């Protein structure tokens, strides 16, 4: 069991600056790193793996500062984007590679064991180029485990996988967390698997840590537009969209609740009974099936708001062009952007 900690880590890459980042990577826990492209996710992982030298801060493994250790000395299973499988080696020889490097006496047996565990025995003599996406992922994880890593660092594990392969890989990562008790750091754009796997979330924005929190906090109070979209908030508005509007209108109401980067609220359900004030009024623009029911888009005070009618949908469907009344729970509207309410550490 290794315990990893990242303390005040800062990295410069050309003009890009990452950090400071703090992380606590405990056996049996998984951390998901979220953020838009260019937010610094890969930079963080490559610094952890030892390919970028931190400018400040420490990476600590079991109390030892390993910030200036070489990648090969860190005993860390780094799976880069695209997996980095060796195209000229068969599946078995890919998995065997770290064992060969160490001159492990039981290399053959250990390879067989890992191949069997990840259902790769039948594919042992294939080359990676001839495998499906899901099979390649299993080879990557088997090969990483062959090096007995103290931490798994995976850049976008679910990239380019179909739903079944995603589900299966989710199970594998769960097992790593629960059975092998290896701490995991993943960069991902997939909300459902991030929520099923990760205990802790780190949201990066332009190299800065926006929030470091658990799943409940991220769901309740997403830190920025990206996090809000990520956790499934359909209604995200930047400050520009909230300009203008009538007095006492929806825009003015949302402006009061907005942060420096705008405001977001989760899709409000259309209740069957009376609506708690304030009550808003809008014109129905579109009705379509969506996650968890029927999505209804209405235009109110110049803003498009997405509402949901949860199943079973019994009432007559709202007609496009018709008027509709709805409420937004005043506590659900969340300010976006850096602010005093941020920085809840799990």
């Amino acid at each position: 069991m290794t315990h990893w900690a990242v303390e005040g880590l800062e990295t410069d890459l050309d003009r890009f600056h990452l950090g400071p980042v703090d992380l606590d990577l405990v056996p049996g826990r998984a951390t998901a790193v979220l953020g838009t492209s260019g937010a610094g996710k890969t930079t963080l992982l490559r610094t952890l793996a030892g390919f970028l030298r931190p400018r400040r801060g420490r990476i600590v493994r079991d109390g030892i500062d390993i910030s200036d250790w070489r990648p090969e000395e860190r005993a860390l299973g780094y799976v880069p984007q695209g997996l980095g499988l060796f195209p000229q080696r068969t599946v078995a020889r890919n998995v065997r590679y770290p064992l060969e490097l160490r001159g492990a006496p039981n290399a053959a047996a250990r390879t067989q064991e890992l191949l069997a565990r990840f259902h790769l025995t039948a594919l042992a003599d294939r080359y990676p180029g001839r495998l499906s996406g899901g099979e390649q992922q299993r080879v990557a994880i088997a090969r990483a485990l062959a090096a007995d890593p103290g931490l798994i660092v995976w850049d976008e594990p679910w990239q380019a996988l179909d739903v079944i392969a995603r589900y299966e890989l989710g199970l594998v990562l769960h097992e790593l967390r629960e059975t092998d008790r290896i701490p995991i750091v993943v960069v991902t754009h997939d909300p459902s698997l991030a929520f099923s796997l990760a205990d802790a979330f780190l949201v990066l924005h332009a190299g800065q840590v926006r929030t470091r929190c658990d799943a409940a906090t991220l769901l309740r109070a997403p830190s920025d537009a990206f996090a809000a979209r990520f956790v499934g908030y359909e209604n995200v508005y930047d400050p520009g969209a909230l300009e203008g509007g009538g007095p006492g209108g929806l825009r003015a109401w949302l402006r009061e609740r907005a942060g420096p980067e705008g405001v977001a609220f989760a899709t409000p359900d259309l209740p069957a009974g009376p609506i708690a004030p304030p009550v808003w009024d809008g014109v129905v623009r579109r009705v379509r099936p969506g996650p968890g029911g029927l999505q209804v888009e209405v235009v109110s005070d110049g803003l498009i708001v997405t509402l949901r009618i949860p199943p079973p949908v019994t009432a007559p469907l709202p007609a496009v062009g018709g008027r509709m009344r709805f409420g937004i729970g005043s506590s659900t509207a969340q300010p976006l952007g850096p602010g005093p309410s941020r920085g809840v550490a799990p």
Partner: protein
Amino acid sequence: MGDAVPALLSPSLPGGPLPVRRPWRTGPLWLVVQIVLSGSLLLLFLLPILALFTYAPVSHIFAAAGNPQVWASLWLTFYASGIAVLAAVVFGIPMGYLLARHVFPGRTVVESLVALPVVVPHLLVGLGLFLLVVPGTSLFRFTQSIGFPVYDTIWGVVLVMVFVSAPYTVLASELSFRAVDSRVLEAARSLGAGHATAFLTVTLPLALRGIVAGLILSWARAVSEIGGILILAYAVYPGGPYTGPVTATISVYIYDLFQNGDLAGAAAVSSLFLLIAFVLFLVVRISERSGWLPWRRGELAP
């Protein structure tokens, strides 16, 4: 599963109805054009070679094959070109790696310098080298004193060959090293491989196919060289000018026969050389394609 995607997408493409396919309207014409054009080029390659073989009577070819002077020339040519390829391995591959992996000021200048021997007329190469090592210069005395005299020796032949052939290895190595995915390399490092081990187990095996192709080109270029050799080592003596029995590289030898009016002899030696070079080239190509490189078994997909 992937097959279903285009079928689902194409009917909903914007821009109105799909164009009607007319598969046989332009196809055959285009094919004929391609065949005629590439056929003309193939004829250009083939006809001069056929002319050589038909001009030289078979008896002449056999006579050439029995001539020790011809064999001395062939040996000299292949021996010198072998050393030139070895030099390309030792000096060219590291240079390719340097150019592929490092950004430094003046890299564009270095890359242009590497490409220079490909475009410079080879007589100029010979002339330049000649001016450096002509008897009387200090470089002549130096090469003489260390036991590698250049003017009119095999080392002169090698020098010219390296000059004209090494760029192909440098360029091919650079491209091959650059094509190796750095993320594969990082995965290897993270799995416990140091710099050198990662290079030997990942970078080099992945780049090897391209490097070998470059080496074959280098060798072919070295064997066929004449321009520079005409000036620097027209006659090859074992220990420098006018010492011991004289030979010449095969192309110089053939040129000499032609200059002396022995057309049939020149054609016969040419035919013999072509046969040997062709067989050698074929052997190298076949062995390269059929599996001594570990992943060449039809299994490597991009």
